[in-house]
């Protein structure tokens, strides 16, 4: 995007430096509570990518972050800051649950497209209202989407407590989905090819859906006319109007796609893992998606890599909490927050000096 830096520095060096800084500060935090940071790092890495078992968890989280990251990325291309991934994924869960519970599915292959469609549709519908308010009324999308997160959560609580609760149950959750709506796990799928994989990790067929979503977003943004219009609008609204691109249409469509992607996260968590609708199945993944999209430079490949990184942090963090009792759950959140802080919010802190360095180097060269 700018001519000051070679592309590799923009795409690889700066995220790497950001990450390094985040780990450095996290290390200090770990040191401060009296643990050995290197030991902690080893636990994180071993616990997240050290075995097939840990990969099974890491990639499960990755799947969530790919969906929410892509959701933010698509909206970013239209210069819409959709921070309503959390609410859209919550509603996606409702859509997925309704799809699973609608009939007694004979086979998961029949159920799968309907679950995906239900999740995407509900997520998109939840994004549609803020999108319309932005496009027609100029209500700021950041405000409306964040408000819709709260509404979504309240709505879900109401539904689970009063409408959808399983009869006779004390917990605010639906009954378990019928066996025909059970999505194959990595263990089951790899068994078809005679490959062994541990049984307990929740990694399931949704991971493949996430990869497909990456390809879909790439083709959409860089190969279709719609993507062309979205990018043109994102770069310059007046120029888009000059070219006959309708701002209303671009805002609506990009936000619907964004909401749909966020909603599809529920295919993984609700249909794939819990197999019933719980009260908090999103668990902040909608917000992590913002950091993933920022770090991934809104490119599907970058989003995938960033999602894997955050998957590692989530799974590794859980292991760390288990192995080192001194490191509490909150401490893990602090470390994750530091990574988000350094890769997202403080990106320019590293970018500026590196850019200056490159300019100086270029000047130095003949």
């Amino acid at each position, binding site marked *: *995007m700018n001519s000051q830096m070679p592309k590799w520095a923009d795409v690889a060096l700066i995220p790497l430096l950001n990450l390094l800084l985040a780990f450095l500060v996290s290390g200090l935090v770990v040191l401060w509570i009296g643990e050995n940071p290197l030991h902690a790092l080893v636990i994180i890495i071993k616990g997240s990518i050290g075995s097939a078992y840990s990969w099974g968890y890491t990639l499960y989280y990755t799947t969530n972050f790919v969906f929410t990251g892509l959701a933010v990325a698509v909206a970013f291309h239209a210069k819409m800051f959709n921070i309503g991934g959390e609410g859209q994924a919550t509603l996606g869960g409702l859509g997925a649950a309704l799809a699973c519970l609608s009939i007694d599915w004979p086979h998961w292959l029949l159920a799968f497209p309907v679950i995906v469609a239900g999740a995407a549709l509900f997520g998109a519908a939840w994004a549609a209202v803020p999108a319309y308010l932005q496009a027609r009324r100029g209500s700021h999308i950041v405000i409306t989407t964040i408000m819709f997160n709260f509404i979504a959560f309240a709505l879900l609580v109401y539904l689970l407590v009063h409408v959808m609760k399983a009869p006779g149950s004390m917990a605010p959750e639906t009954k378990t989905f019928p066996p025909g709506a059970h999505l194959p796990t990595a263990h089951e799928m790899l068994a078809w090819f005679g490959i062994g994989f541990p049984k307990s990790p929740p990694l399931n067929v949704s991971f493949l859906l996430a990869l497909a979503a990456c390809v879909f977003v790439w*083709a959409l943004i860089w190969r279709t006319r*719609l993507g062309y219009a979205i990018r043109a609008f994102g770069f310059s609204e007046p120029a888009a*109007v*000059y070219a006959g*691109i309708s701002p209303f249409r671009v805002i609506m469509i990009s936000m619907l796609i964004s909401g749909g992607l966020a909603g599809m996260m529920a295919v993984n968590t609700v249909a794939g893992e819990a197999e019933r609708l719980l009260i908090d199945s999103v668990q902040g993944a909608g917000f992590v998606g913002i950091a993933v999209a920022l770090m991934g430079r809104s490119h599907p490949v970058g989003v995938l890599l960033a999602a894997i990184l955050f998957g590692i942090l989530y799974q590794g963090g859980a292991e760390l909490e288990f192995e080192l009792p001194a490191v509490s759950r909150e401490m893990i959140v602090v470390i994750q927050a530091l990574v988000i802080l350094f890769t997202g919010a403080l990106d320019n802190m590293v970018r500026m000096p590196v850019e200056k360095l490159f300019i100086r180097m270029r000047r130095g060269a003949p």
Partner: protein
Amino acid sequence: MTGKEQSARPDDAAPAIELRGISKSFGPIRANRDISLSVASGTIHGIVGENGAGKSTLMSILYGFYKADAGEIRINGKPTAIPDSQAAIGAGIGMVHQHFMLVQNFTVLENVVLGAEDGPLLGPSLAKARSLLTRLAGEYELSVDPDAVIEELSVGYQQRVEILKSLYRQADILILDEPTGVLTPSEASHLFRILRSLRDEGKTIILITHKLQEIMAVTDTVSVMRQGEMTATVRTCDTMPEELAQLMVGRKVLLRVKKQAANPGDVVLDATNLTVTDDRGVERLKDVSLQVRKGEILGIAGVAGNGQTELLEVLGGISSATGSIRINGKEVSCSGPGSDAGSRRRCGVAHVPEDRQHLGLVMDFHAWENMAFGYHHDSRYNHNRLFMDNRAIRHATARNMEHFDVRPATAESVARNFSGGNQQKIVLAREFTRGPQLLVVGQPTRGVDIGAIEFIHQRIVDLRDSGAAVLLISVELDEILSLSDRVAVMFDGRIIGERITSETNENELGLLMAGITSES
């Protein structure tokens, strides 16, 4: 004028402002060349000139926004360095900008005090300002409700607040940059009354404008700038608008374009009663009617800001208007559905906007992506309903870049990395190669180097000769004269005169541009 040595004089007779040999360059562009100016204390001094003549640069130097490359500023006879606007205020200079610098949700009083508070507590400053405001209201007809919030005030009142701000800072010298551009006629005449009474109190006022009537109405002396130079300074009572217009437009070297006499055919564009009202309710385009025929170029001359941009945007489908537009006899919408830029293109209208960086190009797009911009629905650029044929676009780009001599001819470069002239060539290549029936083009050579100007002019004439109707909008009078077959002059949102190019001259058009018609 420059070598004149001033002998020592008593301080009270020294001019309020004296500029000696001021020069300022921006890269290769010399915005101010060796300018000397002396403004006597207690007078209103006008500075006129076309857009880009260097008026604003000169005032920015005086107000400390720019540092002159050479020259000296004397205030009341004392050599004064003005490195920033704080120093300017310290030297007693106040400036009322064309675009006001007010905090919209503060009250008048808060805005007046802002940046000039006496201490950490606001109370005393506000009380002081309030008593000053009451005094000034009586003295100079500068009445404004001190407790009104800025965003609720009309533009005329907001301007008074700007003047009050300067007076609160004890300015003795007031610079007003195009102060009447946003005012209604009655607001303008009230402003002039204020300026006269300020002068009578001994303040010195510099008025920058391109409206000659205002100069004649309110100033004591007037200076004319042209192409960065101060071409004349005269007493207003000794001159006439005609003379000033001539000095303003000057006799530039005309770049003559090789072209045959026009061979006009059927009417392509027939616009009647186009009116554009902006979101503040001000009419920017007033009842404009015009026709352009196949095979002719209609030039629209005028000082920038007299409705040309609005006309261009209505024809290009960017903003909506009332009235009617017919293209090749077919009615097209001026507002609502079907009036967007895409619909216009489908009617065969190509639009080269005035501001290529803002409208004509997406600066972060590659050259090839820009080459399809606006025509991205074209079947040649698409595989099917969904996917674009990027290879076809790249091919077309390579061809167009060669035809239009875009340098460097790299389709993969981002638009931002091309020079202004080459950016313009990308836009022109895109619009010209579609074989438009009507081309509307604004400032085709703004910021373009001489070589490219000739090339672009030739292409416009070629397009005409191939049977297109061309509507050319430019603030460069010689461009209008050398390209167009007919000239219409816009002033204050209207077309106030139309001439056959071969039967008119710069002076006549210059007068029209200044709003002076032979009848008045």
